[in-house]
């Protein structure tokens, strides 16, 4: 796999050269009109150079071929990076056999049909994509995710999907095949990373149209220049013929040079590389975009639906405070709470023990003679019985009625505490005890969802980028609101059902917004399919993976934010290089126009602001610059323009300054420097 950050290794350039040369085939090159014209120009100058050889003509010819080659090189390098990954995927796609469930017949994996049931045991390769219908197994998915730690897959629930080519490490499972032959996830991945079935994305198509239009204009401008030049030469009969201009007009080599310099070769050369590299950047982050359109849509997303659990919060509620009842000291409550939770293995229970230790210095202790009362759905509380004392913690109503049963009188104060915590979005756990004949409420444990660090800042960033974040949660509205406020999301959907989600997406889309979401469960599938960017977790069900248009192999819901940024970066890179490419033309005119015409109209030498040595050196320098800039920009095209989340206006100002102004200035400098070298070549000045 390519080095992170997209640094370009010169060796990579060299190794891609053969592929680049192959792409000079006009049958493939015509798809890129800009570069196709460069190639026609190169062929034409070759012919002209053969008919009328001169060092200048051959030098121009060579550089025109290099221009076309460099353009292909960009694409070849971009594709080359995917090839490494494709190779490792291919390795996983060895011919495997499948053992059919019940019949135990062994058939070739390639012959599996959707709906077939196959058995896979420890040490065997899963023959195709599907869902586990029976059993549980640890699976090594490193072939596709690159992650060596095995993962657990089990039937039912949202972790039932298995991918063909991965290996079962333990146990035995029965898998229902869901893929069609030859359309396995791995097949699709290989095609994707190789860019084999890469289709142009909508923006790319639009940009191509614009580039074609510009090319056409410059074609017309150069062709129609010819009769004008002939006239200019004729009305100045005293001016001797030059290499660039004779009575027959501008020489073919020079005219072609001008055309190639003017048409947007820079962006034309890099456009497809930018697209491939964008997909590649996702792959580097272990996200597979199943269509380029989705990557682009990610840049356009204006609403992000984020699941609360796992994305915004750490996933489990944790003890955040012990609120004692009147007459009870905090330490007393802490001790009771800890005691009641020592045997409680739920995350909430563990968090109470941890909190008691951190907040009150209570160490874990071994209790002898304790009888643990586990949580049941009927009692809705758990606790411990030690000699002379019973402690219970649990749902407020349950614990309070337990206290009342045993003669206690939980006061109004407790009710207020409980309501207060609920209102703030927390979960109250009431702690009660019974000592001898009396029972009382000791206080309330405040459990709350803990928002991941840095999320608030992240969402503020999103807001600056113009993206609305909506938190999706099964919690009640009160709880949801509290967490939404704490996390700083713009909106929330509480007590969300899959239908609610789908409805929300449709509503957002109705308003013209593009929606992105993550999901893993089968019931997420409709919403994933409806969303413009639907990222399925690799751990999820195959239904989810089928419905979404991206799969996150790391199953990290937070990655949605990165995906959006990559999408934006892709579009920005295209725009920036287009601007750069067009801005470049100004300098090229200043090099070439005086080079051709200063002989007939000496005043035009004033346009030679770079003071280039001779007409030949000026034209050659412009052509060389035009070719070299492509190579110099390949790393940028592959890495993408640096993107820092900020408002559109700020982004534009920065990029305009860098690529617009830079695009105007850079070629003046570059052409001048090249001119300083080429003027010493024979036959150039």
């Amino acid at each position, binding site marked *: 796999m390519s080095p992170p950050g997209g640094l370009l290794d010169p060796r990579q350039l060299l190794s891609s050269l053969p592929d680049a040369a192959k792409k000079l085939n006009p049958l493939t090159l015509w798809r890129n009109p800009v570069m196709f014209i460069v190639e026609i120009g190169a062929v034409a100058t070759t012919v002209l150079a053969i008919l009328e050889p001169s060092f200048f003509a051959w030098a121009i010819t060579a550089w025109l071929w290099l221009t076309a080659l460099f353009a292909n090189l960009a694409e070849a390098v971009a594709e080359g990076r995917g090839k490494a990954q494709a190779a490792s995927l291919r390795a996983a796609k060895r011919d495997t056999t499948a053992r059919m469930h019940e019949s135990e017949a062994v058939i070739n994996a390639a012959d599996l049909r959707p709906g077939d049931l196959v058995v896979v045991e420890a040490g065997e390769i899963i023959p195709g994509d599907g869902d586990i219908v029976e059993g549980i197994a640890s699976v090594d998915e490193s072939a596709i995710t690159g992650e060596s730690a095995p993962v657990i897959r089990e039937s039912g629930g949202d972790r039932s999907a298995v991918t063909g080519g991965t290996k079962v490490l333990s146990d035995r499972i029965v898998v229902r095949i869901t893929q069609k032959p030859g359309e396995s996830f791995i097949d699709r991945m290989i095609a994707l990373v190789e860019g084999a079935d890469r289709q142009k994305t*909508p923006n790319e198509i639009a940009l191509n149209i614009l580039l074609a239009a510009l090319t056409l204009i410059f074609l017309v401008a150069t062709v129609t220049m010819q009769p004008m030049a002939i006239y200019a030469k004729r009305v100045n009969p005293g001016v001797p013929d030059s290499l660039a201009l004779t009575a027959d007009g501008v020489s073919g080599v020079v005219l072609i040079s001008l055309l190639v310099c003017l048409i947007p070769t820079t962006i034309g050369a890099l456009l497809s590389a930018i697209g491939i590299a964008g997909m590649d950047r996702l792959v580097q982050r272990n996200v597979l975009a199943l269509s380029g359109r989705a990557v682009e849509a990610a840049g356009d997303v204006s609403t992000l639906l984020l699941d609360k659990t796992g994305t915004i919060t750490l996933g489990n509620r944790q003890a955040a405070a012990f609120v004692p009842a009147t007459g009870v000291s905090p330490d007393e409550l802490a001790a009771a709470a800890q005691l009641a939770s020592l045997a409680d293995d739920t995350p909430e229970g563990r968090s109470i023990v941890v909190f008691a230790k951190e907040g009150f210095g209570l160490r874990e202790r071994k209790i002898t003679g304790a009888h643990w009362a586990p949580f049941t759905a009927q009692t809705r509380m758990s606790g411990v019985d030690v000699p002379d004392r019973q402690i219970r913690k649990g749902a407020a109503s349950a614990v309070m009625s337990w206290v009342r049963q045993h003669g206690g009188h939980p006061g109004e104060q407790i009710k207020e505490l409980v309501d207060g915590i609920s209102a703030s979005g927390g979960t109250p756990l009431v702690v009660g005890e019974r000592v001898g004949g009396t029972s009382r409420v000791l206080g309330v444990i405040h459990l709350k969802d803990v928002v991941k660090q840095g999320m608030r800042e992240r969402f503020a960033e999103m807001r600056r980028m113009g993206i609305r974040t909506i938190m999706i949660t099964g919690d009640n509205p009160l709880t949801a609101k509290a967490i939404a406020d704490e996390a700083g999301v713009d909106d929330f959907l509480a007590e969300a059902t899959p239908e609610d989600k789908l409805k929300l997406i449709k509503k957002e889309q109705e308003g013209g917004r593009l929606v992105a979401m993550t999901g893993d469960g089968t019931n997420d599938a409709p919403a994933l399919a409806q969303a413009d960017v639907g990222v399925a977790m690799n751990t999820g069900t195959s239904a989810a993976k089928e419905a979404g248009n991206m799969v996150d192999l790391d199953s990290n819901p937070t990655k949605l934010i990165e995906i959006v940024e990559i999408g934006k970066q892709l579009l920005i890179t295209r*725009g920036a290089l287009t601007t750069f490419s067009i801005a470049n033309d100004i300098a090229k005119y200043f090099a070439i126009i005086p080079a051709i015409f200063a002989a007939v109209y000496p005043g035009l030498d004033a346009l030679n602001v770079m003071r280039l040595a001779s007409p030949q050196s000026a034209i050659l320098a412009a052509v060389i610059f035009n070719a070299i800039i492509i190579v110099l920009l390949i790393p940028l095209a592959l890495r993408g323009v640096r993107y820092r989340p900020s408002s*559109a206006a700020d982004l534009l100002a920065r990029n305009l300054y860098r690529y617009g102004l830079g695009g105007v200035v850079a070629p003046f400098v570059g052409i001048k420097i090249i001119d300083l070298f080429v003027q010493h070549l024979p036959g150039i000045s």
Partner: protein
Amino acid sequence: MLVLASLVVALVLVHRPLGDYMYRVYTGPPGRERALYRLLGVRPDTEQPWPVYARAVLAFALVSVLVVYGLQRLQNWLILSLGFDAVPAPVAWNTAISFVTNTNWQSYAGENTMGHLVQMSALAVQNFVSAAVGMAVAVALVRGFTRRGSDTVGNFWADLIRGTVRILLPIAFVGALILAAAGVVQNFTAPHEVATIAGGTQHLTGGPIAGQEAIKELGTNGGGFYNTNSAHPFENPGPGTNWFEIFLLLLIPFSFPRTFGRMVGQPRQGHAIVAVMATLALLSVILTNVFELSGDATVPHAVGAAMEGKEVRFGVSDSATFAAATTLTSTGATNSAHDSFTPLGGMMTLLNMMLGEVAPGGTGSGLYGMLILAILTVFIAGLMVGRTPEYLGKRISAREIKLASLYFLVTPVLVLTGTGLAMANRSGLAAMHNTGPHGFSEILYAFTSAANNNGSAFAGITADTPWYEVALGLCMAFGRFLPIIFVLALAGSLAAQKPVPASAGTLPTHRPQFVGMVVGITVILVALTFLPALALGPLAEGIH
């Protein structure tokens, strides 16, 4: 420069009420023109999809061309013909296209070719309606931005009638009376001889000039009653009328963005468009003045000022300002001989047209041309902010870019291929009045003017030859109607879209940043397209 300042002040004061008024005309219910709809047999509230709208535009143009052509060819049978013959077929064809396309290129001299009836009932009528067609198309495009998921863009007949009788007619009427009060002639006098005090004779002529003059400027038409157009004392008797004519020709183009802003519900978007137009226009007017006042060329140096072809009452500066204004709008009226301008001053008039008649351009056509440039800018800039480009909530995707690119392609291709063909054949070259690069500039100017529907000329050129009548006629027709078709298709495509709500991630299109970008992209695209041609014409002549 006080003239420029006073024009700016006047336009700033007027653009708002006029823009708001035009907004009400185009979006409000039918007014007193209702009776006219019945006469036409159209229902003004029947909405048309863009192809129907476009067909109506073309049908109207076709009938107009036939009528204008026919009236010229039958002139000898008409009243008020002043005894002039039927207009020769090539001239009549060229003139019919010219006036219907709002170009008003004139390959004839009005005072010895056209009788009063043809001037007033054929040519001046087109001054009104061709302007109204431009406005109608612009309004249709703006509707494209304002509608959500609609398959229609308005009703052409309603837009045409409303624009003509409720906007152009009243303003032209007031303008005509002001001009008449200041000395512009309005009678039916035929040419007659008078004895001069020096004992010689002089022909005096007359005609329904004031009425025609007002709409000539207001509708950015520019076709003069006389050959020398607004230099002629009967068309433009004094400095005051000169100022007023400049004001009239800038009036609607600079007010229309206000109408646009109101229609899209965001006046500040209109301000941005006006700002782009005004920036380009101010730069151009100032540069034209600088070049003309510096008089940097051999003959002006010998003379002491660039006074050849200019009137004493206007002087160099007001002539330069008029020249810039008439070429920045698609008017093409002239109060001085552009052919005799300094090379760089003349280049400015060329460059103004090459901008595509967008700063502020023609009535309506200036707005839709500028909106196309805004769309192209949004596309390039929008990518740079990391989103699919949007303008006013409408996505600029492949179809929109295709239409905008086609629009943008039309005029440069016409100008350059037309000029190239002319330079490559004997009939083309024979038309030159001047020699060397200036002769080339004349031809470049002719095609630039025709394709951009401006109509002014480096008038030394002999354009009344069949080759030029046909070539320039085709340039005018294609230069007018191909863009209109693309604009209407774009309107249809935009209207069908549902808008995307704006957010912080949306490229703001009302800020100075965006204004600067549109200006920059316009100038760069135009410079890149035309630099070789300009280098061989005015630059070759003007830089020493």
